[in-house]
């Protein structure tokens, strides 16, 4: 890349130069000014609201009037609130559907597309297939929800119609309306939504793996599965941690899909923490209690991020270190 450095006019040149030479410390610090707009904006939009939310969680505020301090009362109620526990239990299901399954399936798909399809049929095939898997990721979650709630509809829904057409009419279900099934239906939709993200990241990661590793393994007679276990997975371990962290956080935050597909129902069967805090804030207007729920969610998410970051740096350090017979 060529860079042309334009010479500015003589204006202000001398004073600039003089200031620059005074001390290197000072020169570094004057960059702080560039941080000013960002600092102000972050203070107003993130820091102040976040501190407010945390403070409100120690009150019995209902959105109007002066909040009354209630200490840890909200946090004492939480452990006895079955709705709270149910929502976090459903969160674990979401982690399975949005982090565990897409990462595992994405890994196998990425390896198959890269190591098999890409090599035997050309990168065109691999790119087209990758695009198909990635497509749901660009869809607004609200729209994905509309599409799927219509497909899963009990009457005239496409899934039930397909089942009827292939002679499995007895398998027809009210997929989103049955309390025993709704959570699994939402999980299925989330796998569909999420799968493309790990796939694309892993395929990009595989591109920096030395092809000689695969060639050597192939010469040694290692089959596909052994290459997958001993080359693919260890080589892109940093990506795996990144994807797991991001997807787990996304799963803990899931809101739009639940809002559009089930509204947390039927009977709270698909309630999740973010939807729970949303209804507590805006429908029950128990702002203090909602703030406590969202604070717990924040603490969990920050813990997950820190663990993920730690695993990621450790695996990157391992990768930078001289490789002594790792593969």
């Amino acid at each position, binding site marked *: 890349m060529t*860079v042309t*450095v*334009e*010479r*500015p006019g003589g204006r*202000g040149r001398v004073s600039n*130069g003089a200031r620059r030479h005074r001390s290197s410390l000072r020169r*570094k*610090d004057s960059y*702080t000014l*560039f*941080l000013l707009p960002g600092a102000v*904006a*972050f203070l107003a*939009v993130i820091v102040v*609201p*976040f501190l*407010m*939310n945390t403070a409100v969680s120690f009150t019995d505020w209902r959105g109007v009037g002066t909040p009354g301090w209630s200490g840890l009362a909200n946090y004492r109620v939480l452990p006895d609130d079955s709705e709270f526990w149910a929502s976090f239990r459903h969160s674990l299901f979401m982690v399975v559907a949005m982090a565990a399954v897409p990462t595992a399936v994405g890994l196998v*798909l990425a390896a*198959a*597309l890269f190591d098999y399809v890409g090599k035997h049929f050309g990168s065109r095939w691999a790119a087209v*297939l990758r695009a198909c898997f*990635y*497509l749901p990721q*660009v*869809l*607004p*979650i*609200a*729209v994905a*929800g*509309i*599409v799927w*709630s*219509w*497909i899963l509809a009990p009457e*005239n829904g*496409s899934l039930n119609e397909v089942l009827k057409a292939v002679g499995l009419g007895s398998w027809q279900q009210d997929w989103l309306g049955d309390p025993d099934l709704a959570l699994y239906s939402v999980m299925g939709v989330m796998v*569909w939504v999420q799968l493309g993200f790990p796939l694309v*990241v892993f395929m*990009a990661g595989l591109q920096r793996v030395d092809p000689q590793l695969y060639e050597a393994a192939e010469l040694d007679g290692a089959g596909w599965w052994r290459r997958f276990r001993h080359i693919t997975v260890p080589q892109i371990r940093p990506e795996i941690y*990144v994807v797991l962290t*991001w997807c787990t*956080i996304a799963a803990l*935050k899931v*809101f*739009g899909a639940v*809002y*559009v597909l089930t509204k947390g129902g039927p009977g709270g069967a698909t309630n999740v923490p*973010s939807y729970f*805090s*949303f209804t507590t804030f805006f429908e029950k207007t128990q702002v203090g209690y*909602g*703030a406590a729920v*969202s604070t717990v*969610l*924040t603490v969990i*998410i920050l813990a997950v*991020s820190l663990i993920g970051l730690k695993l990621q740096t450790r695996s990157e350090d391992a990768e930078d270190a001289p490789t002594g017979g790792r593969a």
Partner: protein
Amino acid sequence: MTTALRRYRRHPVLIALVLAALFMVVPFLIVAVNAVKSPAEYSANGPLSLPEGLYLDGVKDFWERVDFGQKLVNSVLISGSVAALAVVLSVLNAYAIGIGRIRGRTWVLAFFVLANMLPQEALVYPVYYLSKQVGLYDTRLSVIIVFTVIQAAFGTYLLSSVLGQFPREIIEAARIDGANKWQVLWRIVVPVSRPTLGVLLVFFFIWTWNEFLLPLVMLISNDNQTVSVALGVLQGQRLMDATMTNAAALLGVLPALVFFLVFQRTLTRGIAVGAVK
């Protein structure tokens, strides 16, 4: 053709992958097929038959009923402004952190990372309350401001590490030639980093387009709602019949498809950049 078919038949893995890929795409096809059926045809033949003709009144009715043009304008306005402003804010922050190497930059960067991880649930009520206090509630501007900052948290994080590896000789050379910091930023750093900024711009646009929780809370009047919020609220009210749902789904899918086709390369490549940095 037959030899080609035979060649592929010997490859069960490829066939399985193609079938799986089809499964991912089928929901889009079903939506498209059913959006052009008349209500009578739909109730007679169900969702799986091919359309007998092109019936566009359903889509047209839905468009007029929800004033979809206005929703598109709102979404474009909000997402476009956020993308541009968030890139500018990210560049300014990252210039100070990555190139200026200001003191305490590790902590500043850690702050942006944390801000990026923070769930919107922990901000939504105060943002709602404060925006009411300052008279910005139910305005598109409020959503633009909030998402500019939220997206810039990620942008700062990513760009800081990109600019941290910026060739220092170029900057030194420019400084010796007498360029001040602003000139270095706008005439050297920004043009050289243009590919990364382009990726960020696309991502910010699509992410903001797809956002749901905060726009749902902040934009209550019909004239201000985005595509996502309008469709999500309609679906949540359970008032739509099958034809309307199809029209809604099609109109929601189409912009996403357009972005996907236009930005496919940037999306798939950029996501990798974002994840590894």
